[in-house]
């Protein structure tokens, strides 16, 4: 099998068996908490302060923002998982919840695990009906303290967030100096803000210290497990990939969760691509009037020889459909980032999903099929972004980098990104003026070496390279045709081209496990949860091989892996099992071998969902 076999990033967890049922004693560097607030009140910076500070204590940590499609006034949550074993998936088991939003008190209190803690603002009494015997309530008068210490509604609201961060610091033993350093760095240019942040931090911290037994059994201890890593979101990483790949034209129409990709591209370009003397830009960003136009700009730029891309989400992909077919059939390189969100229609724009797999694979009308890459984390967003431009130019076709809201917008702990200065872009078969002059006749769509790819010419280079690009029927010389054979010659070659591309996309990542007869298959953002679930299932006596798909069209290794296992669990985040359908369609594997495990409520996948899925199916199907 050609699949890339990789060593496990982290060893199987020593704590794996103790994690879900809670063992006695302290749970050092292995717990989860979340903060429930109201959006638009400035809690995001307090939460990212917490995440960063834990990370800087050397402890593996992930943060998941569960936020509403709204600007101000609706409930929002931030979930932080501390995992000394390096597990990155979301966990639904919360040891502690900071309930700052009265509107969600009932739900937040219900979600604390038995034996856990609830931190609330005791400036106002909690409704007695909400109290639970199996949860410890920690009331801190955050609001009242901030009203006394600060003036003005804005500052009082903002500082309440820093105050709960301070209280948490005391409760979980977060190093206050690390937090203060982070605040200093954040407000380097606003010393006044540093003072008020420190004051607020201490309001919470000192109160907690004075009134509660700090730290709680869920607590932090310095580690050295984040060295060589950074915290980064996938959209930022993908944007950086575009910069490093040499993309010069970006076109887009704002849409959550893809917007921050173009924002980051703009920021990086402003930093790296503006001439210090003249202010001239070595890039062009077009905020188009809609996604149709964004796709058109990218295709026009690709046709004219630039590396061009557009970030979007499912609704944008739908609008781009016609243009995607044009680019496929006229063979124009174009890179599309689909940061998936929950559909259909507007769906839940701020929640995650893997709902666009089928619509990407065969986007547009007629016989089309597309190259797609499925990064599993921000590190791969960077690498696949770079690779996408190479593939697009090499195969002269649209290439999709398919991530999701969880990967794109949440901060992940990833190994530091690296760059090889010897790397040069693969611009594919582009004829120079000299090459064109030396040719008898240039035929735009004539494949001479059998890989399905025909050399192209760029406008403005040489009159001999001129041809007429058309979405209507054309022959190998690019001339208009409605002749059946001439038409078939082109579309059959496109098929060969996509077959060649299947060998060039990243191969699946395969992890084999001692004694495994069954397997699990997933892609993209499911990876963290599946890795964790597989490790825990192995401890429970259910060893599974694991294949993570990274590219489409599928490499031969994908079919081989499926055929080598009698029973394969296909894990994905959509209702209809789109990956499973795609595997069946493309590999011809019998459907009864593929057992679907789906989680599609819009929150990132947890290991528990995967484990429950597997064990439930095993209970149903006699072995």
């Amino acid at each position, binding site marked *: 099998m050609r699949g890339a076999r990789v060593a496990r990033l982290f060893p199987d967890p020593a704590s794996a068996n103790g994690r879900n049922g809670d063992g006695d004693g302290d749970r050092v560097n292995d717990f989860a908490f979340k903060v429930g607030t109201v959006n638009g009140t400035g809690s995001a910076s307090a939460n990212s302060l917490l995440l960063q500070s834990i990370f800087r204590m050397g402890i593996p940590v992930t943060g998941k923002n569960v936020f509403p499609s709204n600007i101000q006034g609706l409930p929002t949550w931030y979930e932080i998982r501390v995992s000394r074993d390096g597990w990155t998936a979301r966990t639904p088991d919360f040891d502690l919840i900071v309930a700052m939003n009265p509107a969600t008190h009932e739900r937040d209190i219900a979600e604390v695990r038995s034996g856990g803690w609830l931190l609330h603002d005791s400036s106002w009494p909690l409704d007695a009906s909400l109290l639970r015997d199996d949860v410890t309530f920690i009331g801190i008068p955050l609001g009242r303290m901030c009203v006394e210490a600060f003036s003005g509604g804005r500052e009082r609201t903002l500082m309440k967030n820093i105050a709960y961060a301070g209280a948490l610091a005391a409760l979980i033993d977060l190093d206050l100096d690390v937090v203060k350093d982070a605040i200093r760095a954040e407000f380097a240019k606003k010393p006044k803000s540093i003072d008020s942040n420190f004051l607020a931090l201490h309001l919470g911290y000192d109160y907690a210290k004075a009134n509660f037994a700090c730290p709680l059994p869920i607590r932090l201890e310095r580690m050295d497990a984040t060295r060589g*890593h*950074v915290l*980064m979101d996938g959209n930022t990483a993908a944007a*950086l990939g575009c*910069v*490093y*790949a*040499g993309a*010069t*034209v970006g*076109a887009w129409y704002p849409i959550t969760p893809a917007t921050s990709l173009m924002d980051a591209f703009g920021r*990086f370009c402003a930093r*790296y691509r*503006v*001439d210090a003397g003249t202010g*001239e830009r*070595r*890039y*062009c*960003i*077009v905020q*188009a*009037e*809609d996604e*149709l*136009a*964004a796709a*058109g*700009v990218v*295709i*026009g*730029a690709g*046709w*004219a*020889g*630039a590396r*061009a891309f557009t970030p979007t989400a499912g609704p944008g992909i739908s609008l781009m459909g*016609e*243009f995607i077919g044009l680019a496929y059939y006229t063979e124009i390189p174009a890179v599309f980032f689909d940061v998936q969100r929950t559909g259909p229609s507007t769906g839940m724009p701020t929640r995650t999903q893997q709902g666009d797999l089928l619509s990407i694979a065969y986007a547009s009308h007629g016989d089309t099929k597309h190259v797609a890459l499925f990064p599993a984390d921000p590190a791969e967003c960077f690498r696949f972004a770079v690779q996408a431009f190479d593939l697009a130019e090499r195969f002269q076709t649209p290439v999709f980098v398919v991530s999701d809201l969880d990967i794109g917008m949440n901060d992940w702990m990833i190994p*530091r*990104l690296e*760059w090889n*200065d010897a790397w040069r*872009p693969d611009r594919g078969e582009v004829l120079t*003026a000299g090459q064109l*002059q030396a040719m008898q006749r240039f035929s735009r769509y004539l494949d001479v070496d059998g890989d399905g790819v025909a050399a192209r*010419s760029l*406008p*403005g*280079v*040489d*009159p001999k*390279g*001129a*041809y*007429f*690009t*058309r*979405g*209507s029927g054309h022959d190998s010389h690019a001339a208009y045709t409605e002749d059946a054979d001439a038409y078939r010659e082109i579309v059959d070659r496109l098929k060969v081209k996509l077959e060649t591309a299947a060998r060039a996309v990243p191969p699946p990542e395969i992890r084999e496990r001692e004694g495994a007869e069954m397997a699990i298959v997933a892609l993209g953002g499911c990876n963290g949860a599946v890795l964790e679930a597989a490790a825990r299932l192995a401890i429970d006596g259910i060893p599974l091989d694991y294949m993570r798909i990274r590219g489409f069209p599928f490499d031969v290794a994908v079919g081989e892996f499926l055929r080598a296992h009698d029973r394969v669990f296909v894990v994905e985040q959509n209702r209809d099992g789109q990956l499973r359908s795609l595997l069946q369609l493309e590999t011809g594997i019998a459907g009864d071998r593929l057992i679907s495990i789906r989680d599609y409520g819009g929150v990132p996948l947890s290991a528990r969902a995967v484990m429950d899925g597997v064990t439930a199916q095993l209970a149903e199907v006699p072995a």
Partner: protein
Amino acid sequence: MTSIAKPPVRHPALHPNALGLTRRDYEGAMSTLCAGCGHDSVTAAIVQACHELDVVPHRVAKLSGIGCSSKTTAYFLRQAHGFNSVHGRMPAVATGVSAANRELAIIGVSGDGDSLSIGLGQLCHAIRRNVRMLYVLENNGVYGLTKGQFSASADVGSKAKRGEQNRQKPIDPVLLALTLGATFVARSFSGDKAQLVPILKAAMRHEGFALVDVISPCVTFNDHEGSTKSYASTRERQHEVAPVDFVPITHEIRASYAPGEALTVPMHDGSLVRFRKLAEDYDPTDRDAAYATVKRVHEQGEVATGLLYLEEDAADMHALNHTIAAPLYDLPFETLCPGSAALEELMRELE
């Protein structure tokens, strides 16, 4: 990297331009439009304009949407790359081409269906971006290629071939462009080459988006009595507001223009556009006046033609973006990739 094709053996009657190219060198494939279609006359005018302007054919990118009009990009400049894109979306593709290679001269051809219905948003936003290009709107009041449905420019009361009357108000691309802040707005008639060719030449020299609305009758579906965009109807109603003469510096002929009757507007590239004012007070640099004139002439039941509005100093897309002068598609990779040291520094900031 560029080179100029050697002209083929030429008919003695075809005189070469400064590049040694004859008009033939600016032609394209044989037209497959209906005999007598106005669009073919526009094609001929584009050929003539490019020839007279000494345009280097392969330094042009010709783009279009979908429709009979959009097919015509195949019928001129065979030595230029052409792109027949999708219905109504040529402006976006042109924007991308311009973004990638600002040195190409872009000629976009569209129809009234392509531009005013499915592609109305795209037209508006290309105007707003002020993409440097010639945008020819071959306006016949119908959808030719889909066989004669009314387009959004059909006048109230105009009759379709089957007899039904249009009752919806038309969209006038010229008024629209003026309102949107277009920097070059002209209108002509496919049957009036003497006016159209100079307008096209001026438009191609314009450093921004140049809209040329050309009334271009569809002989098959819209050239009958009751149609307001037929040959007969248009010839009769044409009202020349501002005849334009485009005079490149190399061939400047002033003698034919009596002083006092002409307004000379210098173009950015140094060449001059001269307006002969039919109305004594007509000023093509006054947007409000242009709007009022077009409306007034329209209310008289006439079509205002000529170079209606020109703003020479507006920043085009690249000026607005501060794009580097060299075409982006060809920048050395080393000037685009920040390299490993920059990445290391960035990673340190994120640690």
